[in-house]
């Protein structure tokens, strides 16, 4: 790039022919009557008597819309096994590259999810996440869903990288903490179809 700009530098403003711009005040056509002006104030006045939408957050918290995109959750099957199979499709779908997943093999001694594979490492970086929900659409097992939780502010960047333990759904009644074996006589297809409705006594791992 060695264009010659000298011809521009040498010229001063007076070299250019500037168009005359009128600086006279602009007057609007017609005048507003006092009645018309009062009508405008009426909107203001009426609003003073309406119910206020503002709430005193954080003392008062309003529920979000039911489909609000909040923090993610990694769901469990009814017996407590994790639904996540570590397939990385969420990470693949993510337009912000906010998700990091590492898969691992399930073994008889260490079964975390039904089937062959589970997610060993699962991280969502909420500094990057744009809450678009494409990861939820990509998830083949409905393992990843979004909650309505929106209070994600924190005081350090590292705290905003959520690990698997932060994202996993809590154990509900009838669920057992993995690792534990699969429900007897059920395969992973049964799990996906929702045939497993709770844990079986044989799934409890005795210490």
């Amino acid at each position, binding site marked *: 790039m060695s264009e010659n700009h000298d011809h521009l530098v040498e010229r001063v403003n007076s070299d250019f022919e500037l168009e005359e711009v009128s600086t006279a005040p602009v007057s609007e056509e017609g005048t507003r009557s006092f009645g018309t002006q009062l009508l405008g104030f009426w909107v203001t006045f009426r609003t003073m008597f309406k119910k206020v939408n503002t709430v005193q957050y954080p003392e008062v918290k309003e529920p979000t819309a039911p489909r609000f995109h909040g923090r993610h959750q990694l769901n469990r099957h009814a017996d407590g096994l994790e639904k996540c*199979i570590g397939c990385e*499709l969420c*990470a*693949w779908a993510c337009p912000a590259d906010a998700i990091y997943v*590492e898969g691992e*093999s399930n073994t008889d001694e260490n079964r975390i999810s039904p089937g062959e594979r589970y997610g060993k490492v699962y991280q969502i970086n909420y500094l990057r996440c744009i809450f678009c929900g494409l990861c939820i659409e990509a998830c083949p097992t409905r393992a990843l869903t979004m909650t309505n939780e929106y209070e994600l502010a924190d005081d350090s960047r590292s705290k905003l990288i959520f690990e698997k333990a932060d994202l996993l759904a809590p154990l509900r009644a009838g669920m057992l903490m993995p690792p534990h074996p699969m429900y007897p006589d059920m395969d992973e297809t049964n799990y996906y179809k929702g045939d497993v409705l709770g844990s079986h006594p044989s799934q409890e791992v005795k210490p």
Partner: protein
Amino acid sequence: MTPQMTEQSTEVVDMITLVIDGFDVTVPKGTLVIRAAEKLGIMIPRFCDHPLLDPVGACRQCLVEIEINGRAFPKPQASCTIPVEPGMMVKTQLTSAVAEKAQRGVMEFLLINHPLDCPVCDKGGECPLQNQAMSTGQGESRYSGKKRTFEKPINISSQILLDRERCILCARCTRFSEQIAGDPFITMNERGALQQVGIYEKQPFESYFSGNTVQICPVGALTGASYRFRARPFDLVSTPSACEHCASGCSLRTDVRRGKTLRRLAGEDAQVNEEWNCDKGRWAFKYATSADRLTTPMIRDADGELRIASWPEAMAVVAAGLSGKKAGVLVGGRATLEDAYGYSKFARVVLGTNNIDFRSRVTSEEERSFLASKVVGSSVTYADIDRADSVLLVGFEPEEESPIVFLRLKKQVRKRGLKVTAIASKLSVGNAKLGSVFVSVAPGAEAAAIATQELTAKSLILVGERASESAGALSAVVALSDRTEAKIAWIPRRAGERGALEAGAIGNLLPGARSVADISARIDLAAAWDVEALPSEIGLSGEEIFAAANAGEIEALVIGGVDPLDAMAHHDSLTALKQAFVVSLEIRPSAVTKIADVVLPVAVVAEKSGSFINWEGRPRAFEAAVADSLQRSDLRILSMIADEMSRPIGLASVKAAAKEFASIGTWDGSKAEFTSVAPSALPALKEDEALLTSWRRLLDEGTLQEGEENLAGTARQPVAVISRKRALALGVVDGDAISVSTEQGTVVLPVLVEEIHDDALWLPRNSRGSHLLATLGVASGALVKVVKE
């Protein structure tokens, strides 16, 4: 050194013109329709078709409409099995509704029994079935019945998993194993919907090339155990690279996730490895990420313990320890060309000596003369194997020591019945597969057998590094070549050796094939390096350097990537080395770092750029696969030491070294003369004595294979091989243990009776329970005592 193109271009080939989708295309006779279409840029979907395998027409995905001279085939035809013919009109899915519908139908059939487990499948994201189901399949299946299921996955070897549900029966893996590798351990069993890939009950899938079946599987039916569930294609940063294991010079693709190599695939290079590689090259890379990697410089303190030091401190200690001393340099086979050049220049310019040797193995003076006169600067290529009328193997087991050379020999044996002759003491598995003529000799008696061979000017003599272990063998090879004009190719076992030879990391040669003895070559190089003069005395060999260090004649050693136990029994000499000042450039702790005064950590191949020179003399350049590594190359460290000692070698980067090495060029003056050596007489054997012969197996206990258990699981079992006659004399059968001993130690292994010279006994050189140089102190040609356990 650039390999010449094949003579094939001068052959007259009939050309045939046909019409595909309304476009004329002219291709050589015998071309398949599917390839002719590729030439036009028309992609016909396919699964079983592979350009390097025989056509089989198993998957039926490539159906097209064909008519010849106006006569149409009544049904769509598989374009991967039909060769072109004059007057042929082909309509692919692009112009024919019939072909399009047929392909769609085949895809629907293939998907009937294919499980919907793409999310857990390792192939997901790079799967030809996934991709072509999207391009030529339909969104909905009309099949609502139950899919065929199998138990999944099953291990067909410790390294390979088979998921039979996913298999679409394209027979690529079975054809590869049979046609390319010659290991027909897997086959198609059963019929109809139950047809499946299976292994023979009594033979595990222990092929050295099994990894290729994973790579060519068009679905996720065959997957590698080590890469199972590790990553998705989009996670991986792929870098074209070169293999650091053997001198075949395979081009590879290294896939890295977050600074860690997760897998390596065979790269495509038609002139070298075609599309294949061996399992060692594919899977042995975990040594680089092992927990005991050296990461910081270390200095031995007054108590004799290594302590962590900073780079400036370590450099100061090295500089003080090396300056003004008589020194020697030992470079291992892992060095790249640039690193070896760095060592070579460092020895001459900084240490002022020719005492340098890259051969960390059993060597001889005869070999050094052979390398300087016949090998350096020469270029025999894979294409020469393709053209040879016969190939003679001397001290070389292609399958174990250079697997891609084996594949090329196998290809020519299969294609045109190439005659391969092996001069050895034991008929190896590889040579049996090649159908080689086995010339059985006692260990040490190779020279006489070589002398009686009849070759022509179109023949090839492939000489392995073990030829140096038999006195007179290399002299006999040179004499044979002089008599018959057969070409000689030297195929070392390790990737760095040929490059180190070209770089002059040996006592009688300077970089670029300049002989140390040639004064004009020395002056030429001194001018190029801008130094006063170069040392004129021929340097000591590796073994002599060790001996001189023990005798106190050499006071300082720079050792990079050498395991002293590879070369000779250095048990005692290692401790004696303590009197010398030893600088060790290493990746991981070794026998040398245990005694070294300063240990400097170096980068592995994946962490640096550089190049290897394969046995052909062909440069195999590669870039760093792991970005932003903090590790420094040997070259960079040597340059730092040289700077510290105020004798700069000016090789701060790989690029600078490559540029300088290219600029000094190959010496066009006279080459060194070969000095012939007479074979030594064989010792007389007693009843319980045998002559030892051995080689390293491809998969053994080499340091670069550590940390990969799945790979080690496919290694051949360590056995002691004896002849039938000896087995009868000892009263042993297959499986009985025998002990093999020298004065230094004993190796006990189960017996296997095979075709081997009656005087010989074979042991694996570095396998589990059989570390010959460390235990017995000898590797070949020596007398050992054989007793039944």
